[in-house]
């Protein structure tokens, strides 16, 4: 996957992103709901956290494009530690999860 940016082009830089397709990103907007912008770029909203914050599934290139959009404050790659999540659920159910 290649990334085109005016900044990189000006320096004759070649930026290639070797990614494994889509990933999970935490998207934080300054004022408005970032969901329409995420969807416009082909991303999928996984979880709405509040009016300006959500988790979305999209490609790295789309995330980089989103970061440049006005009104978007932060876009950061995140991942879910499934093992810890299951331990957390087990503890909540009273299964007595071990220390993580």
């Amino acid at each position, binding site marked *: 996957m290649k990334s085109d940016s005016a900044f990189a082009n000006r320096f004759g830089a070649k930026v290639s992103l070797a990614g494994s397709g889509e*990933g999970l990103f*935490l998207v*934080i907007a300054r004022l408005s709901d970032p969901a329409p912008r995420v969807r416009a770029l082909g991303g999928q909203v996984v*979880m709405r*956290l*509040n009016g300006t*914050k959500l*988790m979305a599934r999209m490609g790295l290139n789309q*995330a*980089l494009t989103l*970061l*440049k959009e006005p009104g978007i*404050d*932060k*876009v*950061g*790659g*995140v*991942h*879910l*530690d*499934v*093992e*810890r*999540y299951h*331990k*957390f*659920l087990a*503890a*909540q*159910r*009273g*299964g*007595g*999860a*071990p*220390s*993580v």
Partner: protein
Amino acid sequence: MPSSKIRTPLIPLSQPARETDKASLADLIREVAMSIADAQRGLDASSAEMVRELAETRVDVVPAIHETIEADGRISYHQEKPHSVSLLEIGVNPTFYQFAQTVIEIQMDLKIVETESESGSKTGKRMYLQADTAGLRFERKLNRDVSVSSKVTATLVPVPMPLRVEPIRTTTNAGEDQDG
């Protein structure tokens, strides 16, 4: 990813600067290494900031939903009380990036120089390697040789979250302790 589009430069571009035509090779290498270290620190700071965001963002998690099938076939659901927890607690971690490999090619002339006092006498026997890039810059300008330029190749890879950043989490089931 950084919170701002472009980070504040280490040395503001508005600050007047004079080009130095030579520098100690050791200083040159140290400056280049420090540039990489600073870039890495920027990446780590960005990921650490994301840890804070994840810790401050709370969600309601329903631990269990009980489904009951009555004798007459009716199905009822009972939802346990939701718990407010942070995203970090349920296992959402930020992605950390690291410069796995960085190759920097710098075109320069190397000279062995010896320090002298103002009177011309040698001060001890201090000799060092001096890097001179001015000559090559003239070469590029006058002969228009674009091959005489510096080059940076950097590879970034995602790495696991550093263990020390991660808090040690102990879970105790108070209900079970009371029963037992």
